[in-house]
């Protein structure tokens, strides 16, 4: 028997609700004001500019720690998203599913290429490898010009124990 594809709004609703649950549950993501934009399975972190994110008022420039945090948040959300994708698509994640466990950062190295300007920033991650236990993720952030990232990072993560 051929299964009919699910209606698009059902698929979208499920994906967006899962992503919302992932992002709104973390106070620090809310504190920095980070949003996650989704196109299919691709995620983009968005850090809307706020005065409280400034680290050098003389330039002015975003705090290097904020840049690092934005990169780390984007990497973790992207990694978690990839981890749960199959279960979500198969409808195995429901409102009754216990909270989604998050990967834990082992190390994180940030390369600061230029100063972060006082405007919105965007970030995208690429998973180099995601094993059962460990994962390696590259992530970069840019502002006005996608070809000119102002910081890049690589991190290693410990994946949560999963059933099955």
């Amino acid at each position, binding site marked *: 028997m051929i299964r009919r594809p699910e209606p698009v709004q059902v698929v979208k609703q499920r994906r967006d609700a899962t992503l919302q649950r992932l992002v709104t*549950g*973390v*106070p*620090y993501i*809310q*504190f*920095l004001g980070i949003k996650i934009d989704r196109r299919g399975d691709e995620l983009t972190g968005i850090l809307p500019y706020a*005065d*409280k*994110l*400034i*680290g*050098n*008022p*003389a330039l002015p*420039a975003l*705090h*290097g*720690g*904020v840049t*690092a*945090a*934005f990169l*780390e*948040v984007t990497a973790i959300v992207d990694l978690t998203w990839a981890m749960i994708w199959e279960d979500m698509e198969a409808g195995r994640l429901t409102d009754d599913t216990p*909270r989604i*466990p*998050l990967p*834990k*950062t*082992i*190390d*994180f*190295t*940030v*390369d*600061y290429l230029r*100063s972060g300007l006082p405007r919105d920033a965007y970030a995208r991650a690429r998973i180099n490898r995601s094993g059962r236990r460990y994962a390696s993720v590259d992530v970069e952030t840019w502002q006005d010009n996608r070809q000119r990232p102002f910081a890049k990072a690589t991190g290693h993560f410990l994946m949560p124990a999963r059933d099955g």
Partner: protein
Amino acid sequence: MSAEDKSRRDRIARQFIEAIPHARELGMALTEIGDGMAEIGMDYDARLVGDPETGVIHGGAVSTLMDTCAGAAVMSHAIAPAATATLDLRIDYMRPATPGERITARAECYHVTRSVAFVRATAVDGDPSRPVATATGAFTLERAKT
């Protein structure tokens, strides 16, 4: 170092923290400053939680504390830099910080060249014998014009 130099250094280092909006936002406080070293504390804050299940502070907030502390260590160096910026910073997360406890970072500039400062930092919570995280980084060193 003369008393005048010392007070000048202390003043610059304190202003360094107070003038940083994001460091103020996180409630950072400079607790010690020396020649090329700094110690900065940050109280536990529920807004900074990264894992709601455990209440553990997000690694990003610890990064920010380490970066700020490392920058303060560079600024307090005896050569009196005019400014500094992070070139790269690597953080190793050794264990989750205990929820509810203050986190304290200590950074030292262990080597400086004409234009670069190399910095190491360690963060601890209520149990200083077991560090929460360590960091190493390279910072730019902009010398004051003479």
